[in-house]
Structure formats: structure tokens, C-alpha cells
């Protein structure tokens, strides 16, 4: 993450991590979650679900910061995120990969 000015408590802050769950067969492929995920952690897939819609898929789960925006925006109750309970010390640099 780039900072305009490094926050004094950057060492102490932990970026939350989320675990995204997609209930594919409930999705109607609206794309709200993909469009508004602030971390670009989702993309539409080519796969078809039971109703013939394209559900989203996770590009890189380490990007997810568990903001729950996808969950709040989804009109189908088809995606949600749970906070991962193993915060890495330091920053996301360590978990990227």
C-alpha cells in the first residue's frame, strides 16, 4: 500500500483479511460485487450456474479486506465474507504472493 505520509502507527495496524463465500447457484450474475469490490478481488467467470448465469469468482483472496461491500450490495444473498481470524503481523506485503 502506498502512503502519502507514512502513518505513525503503521506497524501496529493490521489489515483485516476476509474469506469470501460465493453461493453460485443463487447468483444472477448482476456484477455489482465485481464492480464495487474496492480491492478488485472478484471477477465474473465464464462458468454457468444452474440457472445459466455467470457467477463471480475470486481472483486473489489475499486481496480481500473483509469490507463486506459485496455482501451488502448483492441483491441475491449470494456472496458473503467472513473475517479471517489469523491477522498477519505487519502488513499485506507479507501475505501477498
Amino acid at each position, binding site marked *: 500500500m502506498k502512503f502519502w505520509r507514512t502513518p505513525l502507527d503503521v506497524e501496529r495496524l493490521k489489515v483485516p483479511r476476509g474469506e469470501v*463465500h460465493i453461493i453460485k447457484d443463487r447468483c444472477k450474475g448482476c456484477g455489482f460485487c465485481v464492480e464495487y469490490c474496492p480491492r478488485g478481488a472478484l471477477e465474473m467467470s465464464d462458468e454457468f450456474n444452474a440457472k445459466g448465469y455467470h457467477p463471480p469468482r475470486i481472483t486473489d483472496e489475499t486481496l480481500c479486506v473483509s469490507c463486506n461491500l459485496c455482501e451488502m450490495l448483492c441483491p441475491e444473498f449470494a456472496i458473503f465474507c467472513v473475517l479471517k481470524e489469523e491477522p498477519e503481523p505487519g502488513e499485506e506485503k507479507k501475505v501477498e504472493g
Partner: protein
Amino acid sequence: MRADAPAKPAIEHPMESLLRMDRIPHIWCPTCGIGTAVTAFASALEENEIPLDSVSVVSGIGCTGRVAGYMKLDSYHTTHGRAVPFAVGLHLAKPSLKVVVFSGDGDLAGIGGNHFIHTARRNVDITVICVNNFLYAMTGGQVAATTPVSANTSTSPYGNFEQPFNLPLLAQSCGAVYVARWTALHIRRMTKAFGEALNKKGFSFVEVIAPCSTLYARRNRLGTGLDLMKFYHDNSEIRHGADPNDLNIGFQEKIICGKFVDIEKPTFLDSMNECYGKSLGEKYEIYEGAAHA
């Protein structure tokens, strides 16, 4: 639980306890915004720790009218336009209930418009959530009391020439004590507004501007609901406390959102008890629940 496992173990969606899962998937079209408003409402109930036994949802007819059937709460699906009078009856019979009307613009401002204005005038202690998609969606996309001028609907094929209602102004001028408007994209603010409205004593009103992809967006060549969400993103302006007279919505014009009214006023039951108490004295027994519970 592996992050990369193709099918993750079935943890329940957090909303499932609040929904009648046997009826999900719901009937709403892809990219319709009503489901998002339902999520925000369910979150508001959770965030405000409102006991679910004390909430009931009343809907009328229409796409949004289906909400009552999907929420796992005491709910009632009334005839067209009659959600508000049913809710008033429910409230008067048991004032300790939080009665929420969750319905569409066609149902509340069109067919049920008269009930709406008189319930606001009397300041009956209920919450009205109006999902405004600018037309009668379920019946085939006819022009509604909220259709912006020049918008195309199935009964305004050359563009609408009628002046639409400005719903926050209507609610405020009739006497509502809480009035807010958000779009389906303002999920967190909408959730907050629902919480405030639920906790407000008196007639509270929240308008939610939501995409109707199948009828409104398609007939007006506006793309999908996602395109409308992007439109809200670029064209909505938050102006708390704005004068309700300035809140008209033109076709594909700026949408002013925010909380416009938040005042205190005696409710219908407060006034009734006060009046009868004064006139009848000892003989009058204060109506149960009317004392500020």
C-alpha cells in the same frame, strides 16, 4: 476450510436467519435493486439489535411488495395500495410493535397515495420504506406517480408528460418526522437511515431509489441495473438537510440524497391520549402502550 477449495463448506449466509430461505431465490430480475434494499433492512435490524419478535413488515402489491413474503418476520402482504392502512391497524392494536411498511412507489404513492398522506398527517408511529423504481413494475411498466418527465414507460410511449411526485416533499409537507432518501448504491447510509427510521417515534419515511432493469432501464435504453448503479454513483449528491422543495428527480438528472427531516412531534396516540385525558379526566384510561414505552 481452504481458501482455494472449489466449493467451500456450507457456512450459512449471515442473512439466512432473517429470510424465508424456502422462497429464495427470489423472483426479482437480475440487477434489480430491491434485493439490495432488503439486505440493508436486514442489516439495520441486526445492527440496532431490534428483537425480531417486535418487528412486523407489511407490503402491498408490486415487485417490492414481495418483500413481506421473503422476510422471516411477522409479515403481511396486503392488497394493492393498502399496506399503510393495514400497518396502521396493526400499530394501533399493538403499539409496542415496530411496524414497517416495505413497498414500492406505485403501491404507496399511486394506488395508496391517500393512505400515505393521511397517515403522515396524523403522525402515526410507523416506518415506511418506499423503493422507488419510477414505474409500476410488476404490472408491466406503466407510468406511475413518480415517473420522471420524458421517461418512457409502457403507457407513456412518447415520454411521460405528467409531473411526478417529489416523495420526500410529499412526506415532509404531510407531517412526517423523519424523511431520508438514498439510492440502492448507498448501502451503508441506507442501512443507517433504516435504523434511525425504525427507532424514530412517529411517521418515518425512507425513499430508496433502485434500478428496475427489466422495465425502466430497458424501455429507456439505460442498460442494466449495473449501469443505473454507476449512474447513481456519478450523479447523486449528498445534501443533508436540503429543502425538500429542491428534491425533484428529472429524467437521468442529479439525485439529491440525504436526511432531510428529523424532528420531534407528538404521535397520533400521544395526541389522542392527551386530548381524551384532558376532556374525560379520571374516566379515561390511557390507551395501552401509548405512554412512551
